[in-house]
């Protein structure tokens, strides 16, 4: 009796599990019936564009351009060819790290938009190795014949390439400078035309700004809540100014807790702990970076290191994040100096960091050819001129840059900053190393001694890349 009822229970359980397996299998197979067979002519299709951009929020200009120009133009263009294409926009206004996580989850489950933008070039390696993205010419065989490749410099193509394959079309490149508020500088008795030549001169200026009421002298990103902005706008440009690089390409070794790292962390310590020239709490706030933008736009922050993104997307007078009516009159910028003249990598006096994102194709797209057409259309000269005509930045295309009326700031980036800039290593391990670097700066601003923070970094790094891949 007992055994029989046990058996039937077990039977029921087995039925349950096998049904579960069937249901899951049904969920897993994603062969939409409307997907075209090979060689079949597509007459009707729906495509989706994803961007980390949203109306009224983050990167609003991108969202507006996609929704108001790209989509209607492309649909009309295809309608003329007799193809009924509907393009949808999948906007987002998340932090870059969260956006990356959601992309990874989408791609892992075979979902996601057909054309994916807002893709930081530094993610290419890890996404490619995970098989989430594929070389463009494998998704669509004609991708190498695109007219635009001739216009995109090799170095910029590298941003979206991995092991010699192009995985996406880069959107452009950027550079980092020290922005400063000339009004506050004048009040503090500092020159309005300012270019520090050593870290000590930055500190001197900050000390003078400290005399002003209600003003935080300097913001150099630290801590994990700011994510990659901490590494890119904080740690790495400083490190380049000490003459060291995070990854030695020739020796294929990562930098451990070196004296140069110690120097960078000491600088953080001086600013945030010893002299309180910066606001350590701001580095720990969940919305710290946005708040730093707000403070800068409201004349409460003297200096901050940021990319040209700040100038063209954050503090524009009509921005939704931190509008600054008097941007053109008040904001000044200067190159980031090395510790002292000649101390930077390669003996440079000034340094910067550059990166850049782009757009990739989803390998799971039902319409590889149409998706590629949409991607290349979005990167055509016409589309980029439409996008950046009134809102210039350094695009990836030389022919577009020639015609754009670059403003003074962007021209400064092109002429002065790009020649002295450095790039992050495009390796799979980099994002994790970057988090370890952020943690080391966070430790310092919360009161850990720089020496201990460097030691913690060393042990995190050993866990990530292995002892044998660290220079000693």
């Amino acid at each position, binding site marked *: *009796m007992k055994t029989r009822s046990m058996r039937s229970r077990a039977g029921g359980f087995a039925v349950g599990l096998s049904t579960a397996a069937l249901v899951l299998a049904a969920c897993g197979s994603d062969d939409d019936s409307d997907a075209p067979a090979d060689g079949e002519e597509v007459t009707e299709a729906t495509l989706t564009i994803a961007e980390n951009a949203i109306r009224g929020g983050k990167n609003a200009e991108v969202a507006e351009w996609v929704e108001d120009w790209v989509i209607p133009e492309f649909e009309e263009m295809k309608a003329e060819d007799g193809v009924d294409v509907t393009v949808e926009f999948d906007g987002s206004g998340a932090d870059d790290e969260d956006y990356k*996580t959601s992309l990874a989850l989408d791609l892992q489950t075979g979902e996601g938009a057909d054309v994916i933008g807002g893709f930081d070039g530094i993610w290419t390696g890890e996404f490619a190795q995970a098989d989430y993205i594929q070389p463009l010419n494998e998704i669509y065989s004609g991708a190498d014949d695109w007219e635009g490749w001739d216009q995109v410099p090799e170095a910029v193509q590298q941003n979206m390439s991995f092991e010699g394959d192009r995985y996406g079309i880069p959107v452009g490149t950027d550079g980092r400078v020290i922005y400063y508020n000339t009004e506050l500088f004048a009040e503090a008795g500092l020159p309005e035309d300012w270019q520090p030549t050593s870290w000590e001169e930055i500190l001197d200026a900050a000390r003078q700004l400290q005399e002003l009421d209600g003003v935080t002298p300097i913001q150099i990103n630290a801590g994990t*809540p700011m994510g990659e902005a901490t590494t890119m706008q904080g740690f790495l440009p400083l490190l380049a100014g000490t003459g060291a690089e995070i990854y030695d390409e020739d020796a294929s070794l990562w930098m451990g807790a070196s004296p140069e790292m110690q120097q960078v962390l000491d600088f953080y310590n001086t600013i945030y702990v010893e002299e309180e020239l910066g606001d350590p709490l701001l580095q720990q706030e*969940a919305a710290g970076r946005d708040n730093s933008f707000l403070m800068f736009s409201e004349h409460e922050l003297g200096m901050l290191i940021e990319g040209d993104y700040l100038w063209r997307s954050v503090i524009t007078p009509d921005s939704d994040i931190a509008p600054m009516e008097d941007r053109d009159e008040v904001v000044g910028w200067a190159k980031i100096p090395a510790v002292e003249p000649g101390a930077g990598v390669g003996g440079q006096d000034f340094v910067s960091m550059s990166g850049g994102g782009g757009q990739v194709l989803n390998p799971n797209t039902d319409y590889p050819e149409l998706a590629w057409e949409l991607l290349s259309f979005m990167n055509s000269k016409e589309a980029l001129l439409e996008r950046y005509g009134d809102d210039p930045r350094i695009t990836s295309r030389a022919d577009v840059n020639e015609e754009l009326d670059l403003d003074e700031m962007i021209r400064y980036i092109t002429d002065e900053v790009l020649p002295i800039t450095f790039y992050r290593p495009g390796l799979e391990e980099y994002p994790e190393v970057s988090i370890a670097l952020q943690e080391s700066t966070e430790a310092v601003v919360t009161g850990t001694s720089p020496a201990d923070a460097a030691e913690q970094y060393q042990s995190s790094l050993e866990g990530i890349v292995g002892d044998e891949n660290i220079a000693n």
Partner: protein
Amino acid sequence: MTRTSPTDQEPDEQPVVETAPKRRRLDEDAAGLGRTRASAFVAPALVLIGIFLVFPALWTLYLGVTNWQLTGLAAAEPEFVGLDNYIDALTNDRFLDSVFRTLVFVLGSALIGQMVLGFTIAWLMRTAGKTLRGIVETLVLMGWILPASVIAWLWLVLLDRREGTLNSLLGTGETAWLLEYPMQSIIAFNIFNGTAFAMLLFSSALASIPPSQLETARMSGAGTWATLRDVVFPNIRGHILTVMLLVTLWTFNVFTPFLLTQGGPGQETEIFPVLIYRMALETGQLGRGAAFSLIMIVINLAIALIYLRVLRERRQK
């Protein structure tokens, strides 16, 4: 299937099986459905349990012994790493700290906060006028029924450093509550969020105390404390246990403090569910996250077993 305790099964089952199998069978098949049809009725439930509980648990068990990552090479080809993730968890400061923080959080917000506050409100409202009672209960319930994301927003505004409501009320300048008192903040937040349940349960428990006993206590001149100790608590001991275990279980699993602090500053509010989220999705270590989740499932099961056991003992009385 209500008889699961060995203590009440053995004595009556053996004689029944040996002497009167027929009657016993009738007892079991009270609805007269027969095995096949009965199974058909149970099947949907079993399927759901299979899909949503058993399969994910087994899958988590499997993931926990791999080095699966969200991105990179280990995402495409995860490798078997045995018990490394578990050994790592138990020797990892971040994990142990997080367990300690979770204990503090549960103790502070669930046991001390929600239960004491819930009981106090229920006790005071017992004698309050209908209007006052309605108002208070509605307010407390609001904290419970509003979506957590909405409440989190309200709290962010309340605790904001620059233009926060709390700072202007208390005149505390630019105090960054979420950074300077992170654990206290999320404890207060969770008390606000969850007190309603304890209050409701205690209200009905208090209503079940025979009025004559309270009356007698009052007649014999017992003060509030004496009444509580000698009349109220003995009467509602079972309810207290129920509330305690349920609230503990929920608080142990609660993720909403993440909306306020994202686990920070540093790792100061990284309670267990937040640690797992950060580990698995922010740093992409899905294998480790799965191992940590399994440890969490085990702790949950332990609390749930205690709960079931206590419940059964209460029923037997």
